[in-house]
């Protein structure tokens, strides 16, 4: 399943990083502490978080994640959007809660 398909199935908004929508999403992860995200990252994962800071893109790039979902209606910082475009990492937003997004990703077959 590609990131683009995940976007359609969950009704996510693509804020940045369109260039990465064809990437295969192979796993899921959900956490807000970036130290934690770096410690438990899975390459190819869709990462659900509440963080909006530019470091989320750096972590996603470093750990080769497929996409970032910012849940709970939070909006990414302008720096974050710019960096996600630069790195072609899809930055996706939704009013759904972290719990809800993680549950739906799981239903789609993604595992942690």
């Amino acid at each position, binding site marked *: 399943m590609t990131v683009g398909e995940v976007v359609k199935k969950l009704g996510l908004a693509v804020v940045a990083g369109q260039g990465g929508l064809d990437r295969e999403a192979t796993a899921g992860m959900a956490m807000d*502490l*970036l*130290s934690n995200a770096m410690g438990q990252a899975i390459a190819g994962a869709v990462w659900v978080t509440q*963080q909006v*800071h*530019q*470091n989320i893109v*750096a*972590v996603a790039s470093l750990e080769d994640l497929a996409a970032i979902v910012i849940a709970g209606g939070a909006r990414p910082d302008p720096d974050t959007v710019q960096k996600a475009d630069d790195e072609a990492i899809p930055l996706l937003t939704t009013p759904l809660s972290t719990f809800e997004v993680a549950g739906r990703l799981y239903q789609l077959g993604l595992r942690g």
Partner: protein
Amino acid sequence: MSLRAYVADLHVHTLLSPCGDLLMSPRNVVATAAEAGVDILAITDHNAGDNVAAAISAAVGYPLTVLPGMEVETREEVHILALFGKMRQFRQWEEVVRQHLSPLANDDDRFGIQAIVDADDNLVGVRRERLIAPLTASIEQVVVTVNRLGGMCVAAHVDKAQHSIIGQLGFVPPGLALAAVEVSRLNNPQTVKLPGTGGLPRITSSDAHYTDDLRWGSKTEFLLAGPTLAEIRQALAGENGRKILGYRLDHRVRGPAVSGGLLGGCLDGAG
């Protein structure tokens, strides 16, 4: 100009802070710090500065200089020490903080009364807002604004998991203009490994919420020409002969467990 050693504790709370002990009145904080050999003391309550002026007044007659400061919690839940050299600049910063405070009210039973007192320990007011909560301002906004107003930023207790820039953001974001990072009393700044902090200079301080923390807690020794923020800034940058001389570590760390930090429903390390 002659340089000499100054002992600095740049992270100290008063009873205004949630979880700050009632004995931590500005008058008592100043007296205890002076007794502990502190030359430069920064008052850094959570998201507020209402007790700074009282501490400056209380310090008259002591061989100790009080710097205005604040432990700011950014939107990312990162704690940043904002330190200033002048009250006029600090007042401007307080105004910025007021505009970015959490809309929640304090839970007095859980976090204690957020008391404003004068230099003689008289209660003059209470802050009702929940000061132990993130501001709506991002870490970049906080650091840029503090620097623009003439202040200086230090990332607080970077070796802790809670509320530290490393825990929350993984590493210091490129371009963030911090003057230093602070190592908590639990570690030795000379030996602790701090991946993600780059080459930033290290200080250590007591993060005192109790008078015992203030007495025994960690401190940083600087070589300076005088007890000012401008001098400390030069020491951190290693300029004009000013420098960090060394660290006085918390005497209690390697002995019995560190006391304090827990009060009723307070979170340990609310620091």
